[in-house]
């Protein structure tokens, strides 16, 4: 479980960075959200996978899933949703104002 999680996180970050380095702004946004998903997975992993029992205190063997990282990730996903939505609207405006969505269309601010 842990190994597959690590591999998934690595892949997500790798693909995300690759997309960040493209010259297309839509790909930039997709890359950003992939990286933030990787961060969410790290947060899930930080709780460890100690058991499959739900975190309800009942008599019985102790190891149960840690509920806190899941609550945190839920919050982080919601925030990521809001941020992606904002970025997509921003990209839409940029492409309307500049007539394109490539990095080379954005060269106004320098120095």
């Amino acid at each position, binding site marked *: 479980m842990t190994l597959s999680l690590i591999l998934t996180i690595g892949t997500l970050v790798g693909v995300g960075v690759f997309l960040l380095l493209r010259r297309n702004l839509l790909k930039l946004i997709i890359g950003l959200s992939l990286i933030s998903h990787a961060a969410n997975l790290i947060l899930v992993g930080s709780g460890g996978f100690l058991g499959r029992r739900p975190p309800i205190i009942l008599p019985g063997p102790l190891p149960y899933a840690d509920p806190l990282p899941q609550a945190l990730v839920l919050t982080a996903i*919601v925030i990521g*949703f*809001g941020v992606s*939505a904002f970025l*997509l*609207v921003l990209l*839409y405006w940029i*492409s*309307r104002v500049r007539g394109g*969505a490539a990095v080379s269309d954005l060269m106004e601010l320098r120095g």
Partner: protein
Amino acid sequence: MRRPTTILATTVARLILPFLLLFSLDLLLAGHNRPGGGFIAGVMLVAAIALQYVVFGVAQVRRRLPRGSLGLTATGLALALGSGIPGLLRGEGFLKSWVIHWSLPLLGEVEWATAFIFDLGIFLLVAGVGLTLLALIGEDRP
């Protein structure tokens, strides 16, 4: 005019809409003790409407939808904020929630948490934001 969609898509979209809306409502009501909640219910509602956008086109959907999704957002936020105030005033902490047991005529004993008001607020908020987004960038292809 936009391109005509296949009859398969229009039929499925029309059939599936009430179920999606009901599912969204179920998620909202289930939220306290089972998987679900205000956010995911709101997202489900917006997804259901986004499907209509995709299949029937912006103009037709907008004609049927009531305006004022921004008002929905404000109402939702106000509800969510308001649900936290009693706990603050009673000195037990902002957003403190209580569980109330009601006995209703048909359903019998019902457990109801005041946290539902918060969930309802989040539901309205997410639905409002989602619909505003659809209206903002659903318009045309750049």
